């Protein structure tokens, strides 16, 4: 699609870079811009014991995953020559993604009004933690902060325990994916109107709808939703059951009996035991009342099987069940492998590794993984020559002025 779409990605962390990454999958040319003094914090803090030549900033798995498909340059926007270079690039680009807090936006001259006045066809995606207005507009967040403030964390956890974070800092991927949708929406509109857009995305407001199934319990009843743990209000039994351990580590299977029609299937898969023939168990209410007993019996059945064996036996009986997979098991999952989901990418420092592929499959214009995440400033000379026609002398001068560098110069 976006064969000719050029995206400048000034963002850091996960959400903004993920939006730009998703656009790259469909052919957008993405140029990631960092500064040697202030490189993407997702590369990690400089290590207190770092020696010259330290490559730790090229070794962060999260950074290296979500910045694939991009070229990387450094431009220091706090230097006037850096500013003008940036605007030269911006004039040739369709989209700018940034997620700096308001204080930094002002310092770097990235105020939306100024940018859109100067570049009226620009689609500007600004991601902020809590929005660009309101009493908390200057507050900062990482994905876990956003997830919690959106009400998602409060419903995670055991009924008798504390709230728990999801495993993926949910505020980040929620905003990243929606940011990509927002840009595609504005680009489509631009074809009709000729005008760019300023998309103001509050990560908090983007995350809240993802927890709406539980949040709306409050709107419906005036009660705070409870932490159900592994149970479910409309499915019983519903749980995470122990299986035979593997590699010295415990293993589990998720089983969900979705409705009354599922129950005889589950019973049959369990071998039609005497206890399960109790007529009271034929209704949701009956099974909820006997949930502890069912859990004990189902758990005894699963315990003698591997999590995959349990899943397969239950699935062949038509019961919704899924092995709880660890990271290495996801990489080896036969279904994901058959579909070629993970893709091997060679990174100059980290070598070859499997990364998640595009979870969106287009039949005629398939998504593309074209390369690894860039090293800091890796493509600076190439981009300045190719896109801006800078000469070797000009590029050397810019380097002397400190506008660009490939060496991290970040302080603590």
């Amino acid at each position: 699609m976006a064969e000719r779409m050029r995206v400048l990605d000034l963002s850091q962390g996960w959400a903004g870079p993920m939006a730009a990454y998703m656009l790259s999958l469909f052919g957008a040319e993405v140029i990631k811009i960092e500064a040697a003094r202030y490189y993407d914090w997702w590369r990690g803090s400089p290590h207190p014991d770092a020696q010259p030549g330290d490559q730790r900033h090229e070794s962060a798995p999260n950074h290296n995953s979500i910045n694939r498909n991009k070229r990387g340059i450094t431009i220091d926007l706090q230097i006037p020559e850096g500013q003008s270079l940036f605007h030269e690039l911006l004039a040739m680009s369709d989209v700018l993604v940034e997620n700096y807090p308001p204080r930094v936006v002002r310092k770097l001259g990235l105020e939306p009004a100024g940018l859109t006045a100067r570049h009226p066809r620009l689609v500007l995606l600004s991601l902020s933690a809590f929005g660009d207005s309101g009493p908390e507009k200057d507050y900062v967040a990482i994905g876990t902060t956003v997830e919690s403030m959106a009400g998602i964390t409060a419903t995670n956890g055991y009924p008798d325990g504390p709230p728990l974070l999801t495993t993926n800092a949910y505020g980040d991927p929620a905003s990243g994916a929606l940011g990509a949708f927002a840009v595609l929406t504005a680009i489509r509109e631009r074809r009709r109107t000729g005008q760019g857009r300023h998309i103001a995305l509050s990560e908090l407001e983007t995350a809240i709808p993802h927890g709406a199934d539980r949040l709306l319990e409050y709107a419906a009843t005036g009660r705070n939703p409870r932490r159900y743990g592994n149970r479910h209000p409309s499915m019983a039994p519903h749980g995470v059951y122990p299986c035979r351990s593997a590699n010295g580590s415990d293993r589990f299977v998720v089983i969900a009996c979705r409705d009354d029609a599922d129950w005889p299937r589950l019973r049959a898969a369990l071998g039609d035991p005497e206890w399960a023939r109790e007529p009271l168990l034929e209704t949701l209410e009956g099974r909820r009342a006997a949930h502890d007993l069912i859990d004990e019996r189902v758990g005894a059945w699963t315990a003698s099987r591997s999590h995959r064996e349990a899943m397969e036996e239950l699935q062949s009986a038509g019961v919704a069940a899924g092995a709880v997979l660890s990271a290495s098991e996801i990489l080896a999952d036969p279904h994901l492998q058959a579909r070629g989901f993970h893709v091997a990418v060679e990174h100059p420092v980290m070598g070859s590794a499997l990364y998640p592929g595009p979870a969106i499959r287009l039949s005629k214009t398939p998504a593309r993984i074209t390369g690894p995440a860039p090293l800091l400033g890796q493509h600076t000379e190439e981009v300045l020559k190719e896109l801006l026609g800078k000469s070797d002398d000009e590029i050397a001068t810019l380097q002397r002025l400190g506008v660009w560098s490939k060496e991290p110069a970040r302080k603590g």
Partner: protein
Amino acid sequence: MSPESASTSTMELPLAPLRVIDASSGIAGGFCSKLLAQYGATVVKVEPPWGDPLRSAGPFLDDEPGPERSLLFNWLHSGKQSVALDLESTGGVRSLRRLLAGADVLLDSAAPGGMRSRGLDQASLEASLPRLVCTSITPFGQDGPYAGYEATFGVLQALGGWVHAMGERERPPVITGSALGLFMTGVYGAVGTMAALEAVDEVGGQAVEVAAQEAIAAAAMFDTVRFQYTGVERERAGRSFSSLIPLVGIQPARDGWCGVHVLLSWHLGRLFEAMGRPELRDDPRFRSPEAREANAEALDALVGGWTRRQDAVSFYHASQGRGLPFNFVPTAAQVYASPQLEARDYWDALPVGERTVRVPGLPFRLAGSLEGGRGLAPAPSLGEHTRAVLAAAGIAEAASAESPEVRDG
């Protein structure tokens, strides 16, 4: 018909010219077409005469189940039209094909092969509808060993890597409270649909396939890529975000829970200052990430002992005053009462029966034309627009006379 804003006419919205036929059911498809509708697309929901099962899923208004009382259904389908068609019948399939004549997108969540067997997949429709984008959202995709497997959000999140490392070490892992993976899948459906629409002038319509397990596994890169780099599996770590990153997680407060997220070295220094213990910055136990990992328990106890004496909301504002990305863990009531969201007019007003309820608003704003605090159009009752929509497609006669499969609500 799109949700209307007092200050905005529908035609100004970016996706206003789009027409979407949404034959999907469930959360992922419903959220996908909701996103398209929120930014202006006309969405016609095609559901079976017995209704999308989500109509009978809670939460229900005042806890009373009823056909028009599911808040989740009403919120997801606000402003859409409902046409009741039985796609198990030839008449229903024929009517759907007629509806597709003026559409840009067909969205479905049918089991693999289900659309093809009815001649409703993109390949079958292409000859007559060369520009139609057909988006399919399923648990596992159209092929592969799990293609025919049964799924719920818990099953999908287990197979996508979101369950293994969540929970306390000595207890079974725990599934998220919300069906997050299905919402994420819906967003992927919307992104894929927009990407395919962008390519229509070049290649015509095409099939878009989104599998929930993959959309979920894409966000498990935290663990899958780290495992390959380090050889270490992430395991359950209770209140901590990760067994591999100390002191990002939940801590007790005097009256609730705090989020303390020390991701960068300077976060820790400022936290020690806030605790009145600046000297801990030079403590060798906490100086490097490796040292912090080795002394994670001591650090957790030290910080938790301090947060335990803090008021959760005050902790949030005081931490943010120091530039720290820390938070409290609001309940649903506290999210609804957020002064920040109030000031930004975040919540939309949705009519449900006799009542109006506050529901989550726009996930992003478009400066100048799409701001917050909108009054939404209600969700349609089952088949509410069957007659009108079919009549507009030129099949009024069929609808009223010969086709018992077509039904008004």
